[in-house]
Each structure stands twice: as C-alpha cells, then as structure tokens.
C-alpha cells in the first residue's frame, strides 16, 4: 500500500509514494540520494541521522516518512547559505571531526542547540550533545567548535 506524501527538502518540493514503514532516513538516503544523513545505530542513540524537521533537530531513523508529510526538511546538504554554514566552518577550523561519519548529524544538532541557546556554557554544550555520539574526537574539539560558532553567529 503506497501513501502519497509531499514535503520540502532543502527548499525543493518532493512528492513521493511511499510504503508506510519507510523511515525518513531511508527516504532521504535511498530515494532522494541525500546520503549526507547517516545511519549509525538501530535504537535512536547515535544521532548520526539528525536532520531539521520544520526547524527542529530530529532523528530521521525514528520518524516514518509518512509522518513528515507536509513538513520542511533540512539535511546537511541544504544547511549552508553559501559555501559553509558557520557551524560547518567552525567544525573545520577547530578540528571538530575525524572520520566524519557522525559529523553531519552532529553539525545539525549543534545548529539546533544554538538556535535554542545561543550562548551556552561548556556544560550546556556537553549536555546539549547527549543525543549525538562521536567515537573519534572525545568531543573536546566539538565543544571548541560550538563555542567558536556561537561567537561567530552572535557576533
């Protein structure tokens, strides 16, 4: 049974007929070719699949595509207005990534973090990252990156 859905992905309209069980993460990756969104776990822990759904960071592996019907989706590919979003730039400048697999979800999550708390303390940043796992950096330089991005975006 296919269900018709319409959504806006990175500013472009998308109409699709999907199986009800199709996960939003799979719609983005397999059907729309937006493979910047990663899948790193089965249990909504790792946050690699984080995207913005109507402006809020959500784990796209835990949302059915049909639930996103009528919504606006922003993935890592659509984040920048220009070459790089200030958060992307800050991750690069501060070595906030190593293997890069958690990075798209991490960056999106950090953008959302600053949206809700533009000047977080280090402790607030660390707690704000609890939905995203990184195995490479020990988070040290991710925290630095978020601090730098906060400075840029508030400046």
């Amino acid at each position: 049974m296919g269900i018709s859905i319409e959504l806006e992905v990175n500013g472009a309209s998308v109409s699709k007929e999907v199986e009800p069980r199709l996960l939003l993460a799979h719609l983005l990756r397999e059907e729309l070719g937006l493979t910047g969104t990663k899948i790193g776990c089965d249990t909504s822990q790792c946050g690699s699949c984080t995207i913005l759904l109507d402006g809020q960071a959500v784990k796209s592996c835990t949302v059915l595509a049909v639930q996103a019907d009528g919504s606006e989706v922003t993935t890592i590919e659509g984040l920048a207005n220009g070459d790089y979003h200030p958060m992307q730039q800050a991750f690069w400048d501060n070595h906030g990534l190593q293997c890069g697999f958690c990075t798209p979800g991490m960056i999106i999550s950090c953008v959302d973090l600053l949206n809700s708390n533009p000047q977080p303390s280090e402790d607030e940043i660390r707690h704000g990252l609890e939905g995203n796992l990184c195995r490479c950096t020990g988070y040290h330089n991710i925290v630095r990156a978020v601090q730098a991005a906060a400075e840029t975006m508030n400046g």
Partner: protein
Amino acid sequence: MYPSKFDYHRPSSVQEAVQILADNPDAKVLAGGHSLIPVMKLRLAAPAALVDIGRIDALQGISRSNGSLRIGACVTYNEIANSADVQAAAPLLAEAAGQIGDRQVRYRGTIGGNLSHADPASDLPAAALALGATLHVAGSGGSRSVSASDFFVDLMMTALQADEILTEVEIPAAGAGTGSAYVKFEHPASGYALCGAAAVVTRDAGGSCTGASLCFNGVSATAVSAADAASSLVGSDLSDGAIDSALSGMSIPDATGDMFASAGYRQELARALGAQALRTARDRA
C-alpha cells in the same frame, strides 16, 4: 533496522481514531513514535496497523483553568519542558520532561505516548504519580478518567483497553508553599533512569510540612509511590535530619535488578536521590 509491514491510518478526530482501533485489534497508536518505532525497528513489535494520532488537533495544546493544568496527549516533551504554564502550575513535570532522552527525542516524544508506553525507567510516570495526575481516556465505549495511581498496571502495561486512547493529562495546579524536584540517575547508555526520584512537598507559613509525595522511576516494574516515607514527613520541619530519618527505613517493594544495577543498589539510589529530591523540593517550597 527495518520495521515489518503495516497499514497506516491517519484519522483526523479522536472518534475516528478510536473506531479504527476498535476495528483493528492488532493496531497500535502512533503519536511521536519515539517509544514505538524503535521497538518496531528491532522487530520486537510488529503491529498490523498504525493509527497516527499526531495530527488530531484535539490532542494538542496546554491550558490552565479552574486550578488545573490540562495537557493534550500529543504535546511533546520539549513543549512541556519550555511551557510557562507547566513551569508555573506543575514545575515537576517540566523538570522531568526536560530530562527525557535528548533534545532530538524531546522534540518528537509526547506525554501521551510516554505514559501509555509505561516504561518504568522513563521519567514521566513517577512525575505523573507524584503530581496526582488524572488521565483522560477515550474509547469506543465512551470516555473515562483514570488516576495515575490506577493507570500503571505492570511492566509496560496500563489500564488502557485496546481500543482506548489517552487524550489528555490533567494535573492539579501547585498551590502556595509547594515545591518539587525531579532527580535522576541516568543509565550511561540509554539515558533512561536507573532511578528517578520525583518529590513534591507543601509547607505552611511556619515551615512545617502539610503534604508530601515521593515517587520513583526505574526501581520496580512500574513507577511507584513511597507513600509511607512521604507521609511520615507530614508535620515535620523538613530538615535534612527529618528527611534522612523518613527515608532510612524506606524499601521499595518489588525492586528489580539487571546487569546494570542490582535491586539492592537501586534501593540505595532511591534513598540517596529521594533525599536529594526532597531537599530540593523543600528549598523551592
């Protein structure tokens, strides 16, 4: 991971949703999906149909009237945590909702989904118990209300019938002299509560305790109330000594253990976190 196949229904009213449930005994209700979709992905659940209530207007919104706070079943944790109404009338619920999962989860997970799923390690059940919440339920046979203390039946089992939907949570607004706190010891992997303590105390003008409740997540198969310990505080001055003495003999019935924490250790956590929650609640009263 990949859920099994199911039929998908997106009713626009509670009545319609309840009817679909009545017609499809193997259907499950989908709200935010943050309890259900993970178990479906692991194929620990494979409902034949999902009834997506996420777009029913009647299940949205937070309101205050006649001394009570009403929260629609599809209100998210994030909305609860940041609602000025909830922070004023039931700050315990806002505090507990703000500690569930992570930011991403809090944008999607709903109070109705949480309470209906009845995971004893989640954060809202004990808060609902401690606040004396009333849960409004709609079914094909009509509507009814269930107190939180009657709602949680057993591990992930509630008083909801198969064709019933939790529609609204009603909480008596906190009166003067009331303070509350939710304190949680989180599991390092899942973020669920190894133990979560929800405390509410009320003091009179002289500082003595006129009412107290203390409930726990994570210790037993359901959220539980430590009613004896709480009632022994009534009349006390809520000093640290009074709190310690009220908790010294506390034992949570049917405490459960697993590979992360034994039942005995969870009892210790309940005493330590209960004391901390009561002290903070007192300081806020």
